[in-house]
């Protein structure tokens, strides 16, 4: 479905279901130079099991119009406009990588009297989310090289053997990034690198938090997620084995099962 925000058409995948006012909503937020399709399995499951789903394309990504936004704060403000307009009475936010930073910041800043945030799931999260100078340079000057670096760092295995029959996950990621808007990778990685609002945001979030990380994640090492989880009494951390940063494609069932358990046990 499309939602109009600031005179721009913004896209949210709903699992081909019409949202219902009596159901809670799960909002999925993708990472740098990605789009809603990274959540293909998980979002579709929730859409058919008692939830509304909004798997959004961030501004300037995939089907969403508008300019690329330059900071995690501006992306979070945009996300909260989407949530206020379309998420209904109760909602959960699930973010991956850059999307996890956006989800955190949005959760901290959401303030709408008619709606309640039930839970927050941060997948492939680290804070700060520093990006190496080599990767930032490639993102600015040679995006193809940046896509290649990120794809290789994002997978626990270099030889595949992924669970989705017939698909080569590394090829999927490369293709998705190559199809993204020119300049988006540098914009997005810069936003991740510069974000410093984590401590303040965590202090404002009152709902339960799930940190879900791949044990072999090189992009957002699990030990950094554990540091944040250990600070927060309402947080828990789960590590998925044989997974890097691309958890949703490396272990679609593992991610879904953890989200089902976590989201199903909070709110509503």
């Amino acid at each position, binding site marked *: 479905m499309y939602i109009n925000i600031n005179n721009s058409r913004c896209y949210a*995948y709903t699992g*081909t279901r019409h949202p219902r006012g009596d159901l809670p909503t799960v909002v999925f937020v993708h990472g740098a130079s990605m*789009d809603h*399709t990274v959540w*293909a*399995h998980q979002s*579709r*499951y929730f859409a*058919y099991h008692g939830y509304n789903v909004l798997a959004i394309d961030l501004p300037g990504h*995939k*089907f969403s119009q508008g300019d690329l936004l330059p900071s995690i704060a501006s992306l979070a403000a945009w996300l909260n406009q989407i949530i206020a307009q379309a998420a209904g009475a109760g909602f959960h936010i699930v973010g991956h990588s850059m999307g996890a930073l956006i989800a955190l910041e949005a959760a901290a800043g959401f303030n709408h009297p008619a709606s309640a945030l039930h839970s927050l799931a941060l997948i492939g999260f680290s804070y700060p989310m520093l990006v*190496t100078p080599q990767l930032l340079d490639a993102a600015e000057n040679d995006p193809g090289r940046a896509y*290649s*670096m990120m794809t*290789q*760092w994002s997978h626990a*295995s*270099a*030889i*595949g*053997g*992924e*669970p*989705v*029959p*017939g*698909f*080569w996950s*590394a*090829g*999927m990621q*490369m*293709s*998705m990034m*190559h*199809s993204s808007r020119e300049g988006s990778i540098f914009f997005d990685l810069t936003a991740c690198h510069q974000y410093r609002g984590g401590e303040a945001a965590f202090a404002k979030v009152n709902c339960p938090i799930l940190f879900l990380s791949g044990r072999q994640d*090189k*992009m957002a090492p699990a030990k950094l997620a554990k540091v944040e989880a250990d600070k927060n009494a309402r947080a828990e951390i789960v590590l998925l084995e044989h997974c890097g940063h691309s958890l949703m494609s490396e272990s*679609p*069932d593992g991610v*879904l099962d953890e989200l089902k358990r976590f989201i199903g046990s909070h709110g509503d």
Partner: protein
Amino acid sequence: MGKPTKTRFDTLALHAGQRPDPVHGARAVPIYQTASYVFKDSDQAASLFNMERPGHAYSRLSNPTTAVFEERIAALEDGVGGLATASGQAALHLAIATLMDSGSHIVASSAIYGGSHNILQYTLPRFGIHTTFVSPRDIDGIRNAIQPNTRMIFGEVIGNPGNDIMNLPVVAQIARENKIPLMIDSTFTTPYLCRPFAYGADLIMHSATKFLCGHGTVIGGVVVDHGRFDWEGSGKFSSLSEPYTGFHDMSFDEESSQGAFLLRARREGMRDFGACMAPTVAFYILQGMETLSMRMERHVSNTRKIIEFLQSSDVVDTISYPELPQHPDYHLVDSLLPKGAGSVFSFSLKGGRPAGRVFTEALELFSHLANVGDAKSLVIHPASTTHYRMSADDLLQAGISEGTIRMSVGIEDIDDLLDDLSKGLHLSGKVAN
């Protein structure tokens, strides 16, 4: 983070798509010879069928052994995924059926495999899909043949029988300008010699029967998607960008932009047409792919030595091989086929039909049959076999002379192949003189 390292071709050919069997530790890819799979419970079954969870439900749709082959060829071609089919012909049909409706139109190279020509020229028109054939060397002709209802440009990296090379970057640009995909049959080259996605192709198909399998043991095909064609933006492919009532109103492009084509091809094409690959066939092809690089190197080096040998024979009239300066597409070899122009080529013997017949029947190591891409050397004389009903004039129109010999050079010891050819040339020379 350490320096990222991209896994290289030869390693992917051996490993991509497979991790050692977690239950028994089998190192080879197990053959999952099963039609169906036990569900954990009803919810899991429903989730599988509704694409909420990945996995296998029924082997017409997917199979663990076949999936390794699909993932491996996708890795080697630099694609997003593959879909294995019962034959190369089934792969071509599946791609067309996934993208087109009655009223659609294809622009195809006139220098394609005869089976492909048949389906495009004679069979698909019965279903309302028509094709305009253009020489792959006629770039303006290709551009001018495109109509508002054209939905694909189709050709081969190396064509048949004249070894015409399609100028992939130029043709891909024409396809892009017209918002239609370029689909390439890469059977003769394999990803070892040419990776068409690097030159702008959108879809690749193989008859895996040939070099991928490499041993002439099974029939199979595959179609691979690069995942970068903008189906939604094109506005010409409603089968991928509009809700499909046959699958819960799914719009495949919304579900997976990169995998939309393969999703529809599997969820509709395999479900409804059912031309799937058997797991045992996938196993044989995977065995072949493990040695793809080594075989292709040997195929090419043997071919070059044989061509050098034939050039010195006074009973050989002409040789058609793109690495020879007199070949019309010689100028494309360095850029598109730097590792070699394959091992299938043709040459003409002096002495016409009788000489060709004597030559092929005199050979011992070159098997006289209608196939290419075997580890063993193969030969055929079209004028006395596949095209024997045709007159000399008709043969010429098809690009074949009465003395044309088509050869698929294998990986035997080159000296033994040359000895065998010497015998055949000697006897055919007696006929010619």
